[in-house]
């Protein structure tokens, strides 16, 4: 029998092959993860563990494998971000207001995964309603990154609680990124509205792709900003990312913004290489005060792609600096509208009041956390009479210009764009944004442009900083050309070498 730690350290591709060859069973693979999760509670990556469901699903997978009816993800244990509604399993979106919400339906993304044979290990922690970049806004407490700075004093104390100032895993998909990096699942679902897949992936040495807007159905995923939200996977390799995205994506009559395009065999694109491709380096991403380490890594990434046969060209995306401020109008505006549904009447937390307006106000005051309240209020303000044109309409015009920048670059024959994924490595808990929320928002400066333009973007680990923490590079593609991102991402992964993930110091 294969040692348990080896089972949790497999990639999805390796596990798939091992299951097929009957080297181990889906039940053994799932049990190894269930045990690892139970020992890692100090990380707070899972808000809900579903071991019984996982083992039942694994048993069904073993039967299917025996009958030769295995699906594309048969027996692969995954973690599910708690933004995805799962039938009969409490789904909270990281919020107290949905603390007891038990969906009577399944999101299209998770339905697709189960149809392909995947196993659900549990629900993963996240920033409340996906609003945050550090997982500190979760109603269920922050997630502890499995990464530690070199020489750090962070440890799991005798009681099993974390001691010392730990690092954040990024957000909003912080539980997803931490669980994948800590070997608590083979892959995880995540969502990205301004960088919430790519930033935590970069912070934890994992791979995260936000597909093109419309590639993955949003049905059954709790909405934050509907014109920006897209689901995607976080995994430990580029190939795994391609495997998982193929299962997550599908046309969906239940989501009118989900495109009726066939889902390509993304895994086939992984080994395609970048020979003859033109890769753009946008000069506007060279921001003031950028750390020399990030700049060096970015340069290194371009050299790796050049060495693999790509042509590197400098490009210009002149409206880059306006993407983040425009986002902080558009996203809160959509959030204020989407979150109006939490009224204490149809579902969720309720605080009684003297009349219905008082009931609404008290329920929402008690149920939402500070960051969510702040964003709803900003959104309400920019959509209110007298300010709509000055803020919201202007931001939507900027969005047109941001998208046009990309279109002009792609029209020059550029196939993909290379940038850093984040302006820094992971930071410590409580270090950012306590006084000024904008300080936290700046984390998304390199990723948010991609959501504003609806394009696909992938973050791939590319190296470590001086403190031994992972740094990622981002590749931005043409609409519906995730395949080029997988091909180029694999070149970066091969050149950088797979990042050595942390040992289980928490167990």
């Amino acid at each position: 029998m294969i040692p348990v730690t080896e089972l949790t350290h497999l990639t999805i591709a390796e596990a798939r092959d091992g299951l097929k060859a009957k080297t181990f069973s889906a039940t053994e693979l799932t049990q190894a993860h269930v045990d690892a999760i139970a020992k890692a509670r100090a990380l707070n990556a899972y808000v809900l563990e579903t071991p019984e469901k996982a083992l039942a699903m694994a048993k069904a997978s073993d039967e299917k494998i025996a009958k030769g009816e295995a699906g594309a993800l048969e027996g692969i244990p995954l973690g599910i971000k708690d933004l995805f509604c799962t039938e009969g399993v409490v789904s909270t979106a990281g919020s107290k207001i949905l603390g007891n919400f038990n969906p009577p339906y399944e999101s299209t993304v998770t339905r697709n995964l189960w149809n392909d044979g995947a196993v659900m290990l549990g629900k993963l922690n996240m920033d409340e309603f996906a609003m945050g970049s550090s997982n500190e806004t979760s109603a269920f407490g922050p997630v502890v990154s499995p990464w530690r700075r070199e020489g750090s004093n962070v440890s799991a104390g005798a009681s099993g609680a974390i001691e010392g100032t730990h690092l954040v895993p990024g957000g909003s998909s912080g539980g997803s990124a931490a669980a994948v990096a800590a070997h608590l699942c083979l892959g995880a679902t995540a969502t990205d509205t301004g960088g919430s897949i790519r930033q935590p992936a970069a912070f934890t040495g994992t791979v995260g792709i936000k597909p093109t807007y419309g590639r993955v159905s949003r049905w059954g995923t709790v909405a934050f900003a509907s014109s920006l939200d897209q689901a995607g996977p976080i995994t430990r390799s580029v190939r795994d990312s391609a495997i998982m995205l193929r299962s997550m994506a599908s046309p969906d009559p239940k989501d009118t913004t989900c495109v009726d395009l066939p889902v390509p065999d993304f895994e086939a694109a992984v080994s395609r290489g970048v020979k003859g491709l033109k890769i753009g380096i946008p000069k506007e991403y060279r921001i003031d005060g950028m750390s020399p380490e990030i700049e060096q890594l970015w340069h290194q990434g371009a050299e790796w792609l050049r060495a693999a046969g790509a042509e590197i060209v400098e490009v210009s995306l002149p409206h880059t600096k306006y993407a983040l401020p425009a986002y902080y109008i558009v996203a809160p505006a959509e959030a204020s509208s989407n979150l109006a549904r939490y009224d204490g009447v149809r579902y969720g937390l309720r605080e009684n009041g003297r009349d219905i307006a008082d009931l609404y106000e008290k329920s929402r005051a008690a149920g939402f956390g500070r960051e969510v309240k702040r964003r709803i209020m900003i959104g309400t303000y920019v959509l209110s009479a007298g300010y709509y044109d000055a803020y919201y309409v202007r931001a939507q015009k900027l969005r047109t210009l941001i998208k046009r920048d990309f279109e002009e670059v792609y029209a020059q024959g550029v196939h993909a764009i290379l940038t850093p994924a984040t302006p820094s490595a992971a930071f410590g808990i409580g270090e950012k944004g306590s006084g000024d929320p904008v300080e936290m928002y700046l984390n998304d400066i390199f990723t948010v442009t991609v959501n504003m333009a609806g394009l696909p973007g992938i973050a791939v680990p590319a190296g470590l900083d001086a403190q031994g923490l992972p740094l990622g590079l981002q590749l931005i593609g043409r609409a519906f050309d995730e395949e080029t991102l997988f091909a180029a991402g694999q070149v970066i992964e091969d050149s950088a070498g797979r990042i050595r993930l942390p040992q289980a110091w928490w167990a």
Partner: protein
Amino acid sequence: MSVDEKTVRRIAHLARIAVTDEEVPHLQGEINAILSFVEQLNEVNVEGIEPMTSVTPMVMKKRQDGVTDGGYPEKIVQNAPATEDNFFLVPKVVE
């Protein structure tokens, strides 16, 4: 532009979020920090630019106008804090 305390209270009411007296100055500071950050959008000449309405050029999907789902009110109300006979219960709205 910046907001005063009175405006913060007005926004909170529009958003149907009760705020305490202690929360108002904090919210005011945070909202003003964000409004000052987005101020830079005024540098850009947006004359003649169409505001974005759809990020991917696509025709909205339509389907036959027919009943395709439903018939399970108990599922619809199963998460409601207060119900009676498959209706949502709220405080008295009409005298």
